[in-house]
């Protein structure tokens, strides 16, 4: 069967549009991610420092696109503590994204990044968090953890070797 190129193109466009429309109707067409982090899995609850945190959001699901305001909303860490910990001006802390750490910590090895925020939130809230990579914290963050969080001896030792001095 011979087919004209115009017909092939029009059929292709119609097929793609119909496919998009159909998948949208079925709920498969998602172009945006649900910004809500996942809750901690039930099997990990027994590892938690505080049983009162049951149903808390998983700190491991903190994303680079999260703003400090997102973290404050989901994980209930005060904005002031987040701003102080990561040396971000308080007036721009709410909209500051975790992935923008590289603009204030221009370390060539990128040692302070999204994993640093995961670590900080997890220890601040006493939530379970498995270190998958070596994460560093700025000195003010370590100080806030020592002052406000119930950290273990093991965590204290980790902070002693994974804290970076920041420029004021």
């Amino acid at each position, binding site marked *: *069967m*011979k*087919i*004209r*190129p*115009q017909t*092939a*193109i029009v*059929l*292709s*466009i119609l*097929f*793609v549009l119909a*496919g*998009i429309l159909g*998948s949208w109707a079925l709920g*498969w*067409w*998602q*172009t*945006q*991610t649900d910004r809500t982090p996942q809750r901690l899995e039930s099997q990990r609850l027994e590892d938690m420092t505080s049983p009162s945190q049951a149903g808390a959001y998983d700190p491991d699901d903190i*994303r680079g696109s999260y703003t400090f305001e997102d973290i404050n909303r989901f994980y209930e860490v005060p904005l002031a503590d987040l701003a102080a910990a990561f040396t971000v001006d308080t007036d721009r802390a709410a*909209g500051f994204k975790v992935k923008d750490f590289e603009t204030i910590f221009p370390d060539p090895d990128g040692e302070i990044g999204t994993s640093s925020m995961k670590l900080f939130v997890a220890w601040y809230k006493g939530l379970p968090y498995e270190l998958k990579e070596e994460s560093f914290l700025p000195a003010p963050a370590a100080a806030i953890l020592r002052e406000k969080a119930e950290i273990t001896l093991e965590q204290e030792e980790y902070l002693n070797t994974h804290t970076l001095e920041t420029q004021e």
Partner: protein
Amino acid sequence: MNTKRSRVQTLRAVVQWVMFILVAAIALVKYLKESGVVIPLPEISLHAVCPFGGVVTVYEFLTTGGLIQKLHSSALVLMALGLVVAFFFGPIFCGYFCPLGTWQEWIGKLGKRIFKRKYNRLLPSFIDKYLRYLRYIVLVLVVYQTAVTAKLVFADVDPYYALFNFYTGEVALSALLILAAVTVLSLFVERPWCKYFCPYGALLGLFNLIRVFPVRRREETCINCKKCDVACPMNIKVSTAKAVRDHQCISCHECLSGVACPVEDTVIISSAKGGRQA
């Protein structure tokens, strides 16, 4: 003949322009909204409308039911739709829809003015024919690395993403350098990224081997003028084949009767089985 020619090429140009503007607008809206500008439009990531995103996340989807970070289910839907279209009509995505292909064609027009008939024929064929398989290595490496790391590793070298996000500050330097290299190479070679590196083009290109409606040449009416060969941006020898089954065909339809071929009903799209294949 001129009317037919203008219709196919005009339609192609319109589709290419619409796709280019659409993708550029999607990237711009996302950037503006992230910058705090209030726009009553949805914020869509380019990764959400790139069918290759669906390819690289297939392993993650099949093994965990989830998707690679930054990707969305729309990419899987587009991948599936693209593969079905390719099964029937070949890599029409490459020839008509891909904005990076369009970008290379636009730059290539300048190259044609500079090099005239030598354009797209500057690379020795013994090098060129082996380089054409490089994109399969890229495809395997990208899919494997994505599966192993569960990260969108291709984003760091993706010239398509770089082309539409170069002003956002979110593009890796490596991707910008590759975009620059592809742009410069397009002055000498038509669609260099598509020919040698594009992993999605590699996948879609395989459908040329089995597509239901390939390009076919009728020997009985062919006058052997080789205008189809000259017109092909991928340097396929259409004039020596009955059916074009070359893995590099991008379904741009430039070789067809009424476009490059001056003889009516000679180079056509048809499901009828032919003999020797290009």
